[in-house]
């Protein structure tokens, strides 16, 4: 995989105002018209990437007649403004947002942690290359397998072999709905399938860590566990940011496992994407205003995380 060096480059050289045009100074000076054209093209592309979101946003703020009668990308300024869709979508989705957070956050943290520990263990192990390569290949392949290939076994596993409803009895006694069994199953499933990517991301980070430093700590009398705790973990903070953000987006956004494990949008434990997938398609017909509001509400947490940490996010992708 490609090494993540986007961050450094962009911060140091380019965006911090290399007014003379960075890598191609000569080109820039020679072709100022081209430069103008370049920005025009870039802005045009911005319009393309934002158009669906903009159309969604303005549509979500219109009345149902407004949706039909006005242009899809024009703002709701002629009296068709309405927040009804947002209110309705939020009513329907608020339960799902909570559920999504309930499983996505722990699943993200746990899979990142397991991945980090595993990657640390792999970095420590001085294995023969052929075994190490096989082992890593299993992890890398684990990232890429289509989940369809495990779907039937996973559902059978949870329904017939690993019945955890009884284990969670204390929750039911507290008045939690039994539908939440499915959410716990979904959480564990998400953790398991998140491990390969988390491990590989951390490994690419630890591989570049100074091995002598770890060895120094060993000689300083620290056990492997203590080294992780006192040296590696504190130094992993930047990678944790990357992995947590990436994993959170993945888990929050995933529909397939939610669909087969939670199944019904009316389940008390239904996550936001599952509810969204059925939103607006009822006997009432497609209500685009409602659908757009729902889509935006569901996307809000991941968009917020993305905008706040876009560097880490792209680093996670490029790795």
């Amino acid at each position: 995989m490609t090494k993540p060096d986007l961050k450094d480059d962009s911060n140091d050289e380019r965006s911090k105002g290399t007014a003379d045009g960075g890598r191609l100074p000569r080109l820039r000076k020679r072709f100022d018209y081209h430069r103008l054209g370049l920005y025009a093209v870039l802005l045009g592309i911005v319009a393309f990437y934002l158009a669906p979101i903009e159309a969604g946003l303005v549509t979500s703020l219109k009345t149902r007649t407004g949706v039909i009668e006005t242009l899809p990308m024009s703002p709701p300024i002629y009296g068709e403004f309405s927040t009804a869709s947002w209110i309705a979508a939020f009513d329907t989705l608020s339960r799902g947002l909570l559920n999504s957070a309930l499983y996505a956050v722990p699943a993200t943290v746990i899979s990142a942690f397991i991945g980090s520990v595993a990657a640390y263990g792999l970095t420590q192990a001085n294995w023969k290359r052929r075994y190490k390569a096989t082992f890593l290949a299993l992890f890398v392949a684990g990232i890429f397998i289509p989940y369809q290939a495990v779907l039937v076994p996973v559902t059978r596993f949870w329904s017939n072999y690993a019945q955890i409803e009884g284990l969670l009895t204390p929750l039911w006694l507290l008045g939690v709905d039994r539908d939440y069994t499915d959410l716990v199953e979904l959480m564990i499933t998400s953790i398991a399938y998140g491990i390969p990517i988390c491990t590989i991301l951390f490994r690419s980070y630890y591989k570049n860590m100074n091995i002598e430093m770890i060895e120094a700590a060993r000689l300083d009398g620290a056990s492997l566990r203590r080294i992780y705790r006192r040296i590696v973990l504190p130094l992993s903070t930047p990678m944790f940011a990357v992995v947590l953000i990436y994993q959170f987006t993945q888990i929050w956004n995933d529909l397939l496992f939610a669909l087969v494990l939670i199944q019904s949008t009316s389940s008390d434990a239904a996550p936001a994407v599952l509810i969204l997938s059925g939103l607006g398609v009822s006997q009432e017909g497609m209500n685009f205003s409602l659908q757009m509001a729902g889509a935006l509400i569901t996307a809000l947490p991941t968009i917020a995380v993305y905008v706040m940490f876009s560097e880490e996010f792209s680093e996670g992708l490029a790795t």
Partner: protein
Amino acid sequence: MRDIFARRKSDDESTDRSDETRADGGVARAGREKPGVVGRTRRALDRRFGEDFVESAPFWFPAFLLMALFVYGAILWNLVISLTDYEGFGLAGPDYSNLDFEMYVRAFNDSNVINASINTFVLVIGFTLTTLVVGLLLALLVDRGIRFENTFRTIYLLPMSLSFVVTAQFWLWMYNYDNGVVNIVLGTIGLGPIDWLGNQSIVLWAVIFALTWQFSGYAMVVYLAGLRAIPDDNYEAAMVDGASTVKMYWRVIIPQLKGATISASVVLMVFALKAFDFLYALVSGYRPPAGTDILATLMVREAYQNTNWAYGSTIAIILFVMALLIIGPYLIYQFRRDNL
């Protein structure tokens, strides 16, 4: 760096030698760890797999176990289920006593499977190629030392943070026949309206277009990382040689992006194989718009809607094999480049 590669010996010679030294060092070894069963096993494992195999095990083993069970165990189980006749409501569960390839025979004669395979193929190839090309163009544009590069990059990558489900909702509206942005924009130049999602012959390309919108930012990021790894003097040398900009990119820069292209292609292809979420959300049901049925949707529909579990598992295996055909060469490539 360690300086270890001192001397190569033939196998025979070194075996002799270690025997010899072992005999010599007999006294020294008396003080060593008592060779109990645990110690012996540990030593044997370490010798087989490499140093620290056992010591590091507590760290990687839990992750390995979870992955082995959930990923590889599940795939094997899925393979076994695909050999049964398991269907309907599983009060009886699959009958593992009678395994055969009946479901595979059925799949290879099923026009739905063939159709879905073709669609999958078109989707994977069409989507990957368009996304790579768009991503590369974006990367080249963004890499030209522009101002506000971060802002541009953030916006181009923004769709990547969205769920397939969200993207599907947005594009359902974009493609709406009467009121969708696409048809209205086309209308201003006198085209259309076009029934993007209803017309069987173009719907797949409409889906590819929407997915390209979502993922081209990803391709851009990978290509940018690749471009940044190319030393500046390559650009300068090419310009000193008098190459035109286009020629410079074509002859000097793009060939150096092979690695980035391969990484990005694999990820994109696998995303395309997984496009189930998008197609499901498009219709909020298991049967995607006519002309877009892919193996991923067909598998879920057969298994979960029609309760043909074994048949669904069979389709899943076909899909898995397709994924392997992509991942396998990639892993070998990575191994050769010493990245594993």
